[in-house]
């Protein structure tokens, strides 16, 4: 069995707010301090309707799951509260729903445990979750100290796991949270709890945390070659901490677009990928690294390595990210290669990206479901 023929495709949609005024091009950052006077709720309504319809299409076409993210003070996503979106999708879908996810630091952890348990019970056990620390930008937007974020994060995870895996009433005495009666109703339907991932940006602290808790691990914003090294290290650390290494423990992100020819696919996809990297992700190093958000050695590593936020050229993007645009054959080949080298069966797939119009999303999503997934699943594996 290859990884490719068992690969699961989770349809990731960032719900971007698009149609920014022309002067957005002059802004240093489109996160944190880019004024919400540029947000038009009527345009937002139209976009929500459209994006929900794209998620429902993916569900009907048989994608294995739908994935939502969370960010604040940003045009990057219209999901600052993705559990609301997940709740809207649940009664209309049958695929899995991934909330990737609410940073536990920005909610009381018992409440986050409750919300996820609600979604799991409401969906009949279709929920996957990720626990992000939250990007640096979120710490400028929320009333939480970035310098204690990692310690608070760890404690939040302990509270959530206690809520999910131990019968209440329990008590909890931590440095950040004290609970006298930890006894949330409901508990999740999946046992011991919904599949859980930690999302990181490659720092060893975050990777180690995922391994220690036995959570899956997903990594964003670092080059593919570096991701593979981090994944190998993560699997070693999983074993070290006594957890089983399964094929879905690592999640990889892929940006893919399918069309009739390679040239047409690239022509149709490229402007939206460029928009994503140049506009949607644009922010400043200061917002990426608020005081104390990373350790001092990790800060040194970051300021001496490449920055993916807000500047890009197509060739270097292809080199450091998993981006493919082409015929079903080309896309299937690229994906088969990526899942084999990452030794994973779990793919978070972005087709909708940046300012892509609905017709392209519908076209590429349909072609991916009907022409790419069957190709991957019917592959014969040549024994080594």
């Amino acid at each position, binding site marked *: 069995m290859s990884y490719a023929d068992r690969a699961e495709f989770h349809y990731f949609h960032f719900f971007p707010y698009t149609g920014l005024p022309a002067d957005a091009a002059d802004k240093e950052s489109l996160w944190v301090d880019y004024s919400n006077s540029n947000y038009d709720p009527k345009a937002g309504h139209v976009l929500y309707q459209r994006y929900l319809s794209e998620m429902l299409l993916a569900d009907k076409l048989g994608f294995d799951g739908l994935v939502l993210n969370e960010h604040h003070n940003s045009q990057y996503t219209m999901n600052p509260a993705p559990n609301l979106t997940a709740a809207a999708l649940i009664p209309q879908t049958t695929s899995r729903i991934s909330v990737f996810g609410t940073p536990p630091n920005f909610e009381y952890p018992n409440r986050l445990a409750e919300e996820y348990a609600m979604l799991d019970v409401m969906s009949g056990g279709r929920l996957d979750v990720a626990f992000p620390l939250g990007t640096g930008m979120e710490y400028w937007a929320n009333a939480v*100290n*970035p310098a204690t974020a990692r310690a608070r994060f760890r404690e939040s995870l302990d509270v959530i796991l206690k809520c999910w895996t131990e019968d209440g009433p329990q008590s909890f005495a931590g440095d950040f949270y004290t609970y006298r009666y930890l006894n949330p109703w409901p508990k999740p339907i999946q046992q011991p709890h919904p599949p859980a991932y930690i999302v990181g940006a490659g720092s060893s602290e975050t990777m180690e945390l995922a391994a220690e808790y036995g959570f899956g691990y997903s990594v964003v914003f670092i080059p593919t070659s570096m991701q593979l090294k981090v994944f190998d290290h993560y699997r070693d650390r999983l074993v070290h901490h006594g957890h089983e290494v399964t094929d879905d423990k690592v999640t990889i992100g892929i940006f893919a677009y399918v069309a009739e020819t390679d040239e047409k696919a690239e022509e149709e996809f490229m402007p939206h990928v460029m928009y994503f990297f140049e506009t949607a992700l644009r922010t400043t190093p200061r917002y990426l690294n608020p005081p104390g958000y990373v350790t001092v050695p990790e800060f*040194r590593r970051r*300021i*001496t390595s490449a920055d993916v936020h807000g500047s890009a050229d197509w060739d270097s993007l292809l080199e450091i990210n998993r981006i493919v645009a082409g015929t079903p054959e080309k896309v299937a080949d690229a994906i088969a290669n990526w899942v084999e080298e990452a030794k994973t069966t779990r793919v978070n797939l972005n087709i909708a990206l940046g300012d892509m119009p609905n017709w392209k999303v519908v076209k590429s999503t349909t072609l991916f479901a009907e022409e790419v997934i069957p190709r991957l699943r019917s592959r014969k594996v040549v024994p080594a």
Partner: protein
Amino acid sequence: MSERSADTIDRIELDVNGTPSVVLAMGDPLAPPLVYFHGAGTFHGAEFAPAWAEEFRVLMPFHPGYGESGDYDDLQGVHDLVLHYTELFDQLGLVRDVNLVGLSLGGLLAARFAIAQQHRLRRLVLCCPAGLKVPEVPVDDLFTLKPEEVVGRLVHNFDTIAKHLPADPHDVDFTVDRYRETRTTALLFWEHPFDRVIPRWLGRVYIPSMVIWGDEDTLVPPALASHWGALLPNATVKTFADAGHLVLDESPDAVTTIAEFFS
């Protein structure tokens, strides 16, 4: 005893309840002590200190998490630093008649230390102290300002500070050192930039005190000087022309005034 030059620097290393701490010292060890608490950045040094070392034993500790001192695990607020300095003062034998001067964050710390440990002090000088919330005098949030903007607003005359900045504005070591110090400042003040204790308790500090401000301070407004003066029962307020936030670097007159006040 040999003659000591006033600008010879002794480096004293201490273990303050687990925090490796460095104190730079100048002047005759037997002279009356003058302790200086630095602000939220240490990169501009203390070029004014030799003037004090003519007459005083000048002791300049690096706060935990700043400059040459180590980090204080689990640092949560200014009160932790008050306890840190209570122990550090004990180790240095600073039990009475200490002259204490603090600038900016160090001014706030000096005020908080005086509230709890006044019996060790002879006189107190607060230079443009941070952390007092006065509704009619808005103060810009330090974390919200861009670093390059903060640097510009530290001084009235940029030449004062230019020589302490690296030639390359992206110098890695300099940037990392500033990140570490700002991290410590965030541990202390991110959630609560204004001090809750000062307005309620500073009235306990009856020793002769002085509040000093640069007229051109654009970081912490000079309009706050009279408010600090009003909270301290036995204080005079002095402001100095052509000086910004780093009033001791920019006003030799301020440095001399402090020396005379402590004499």
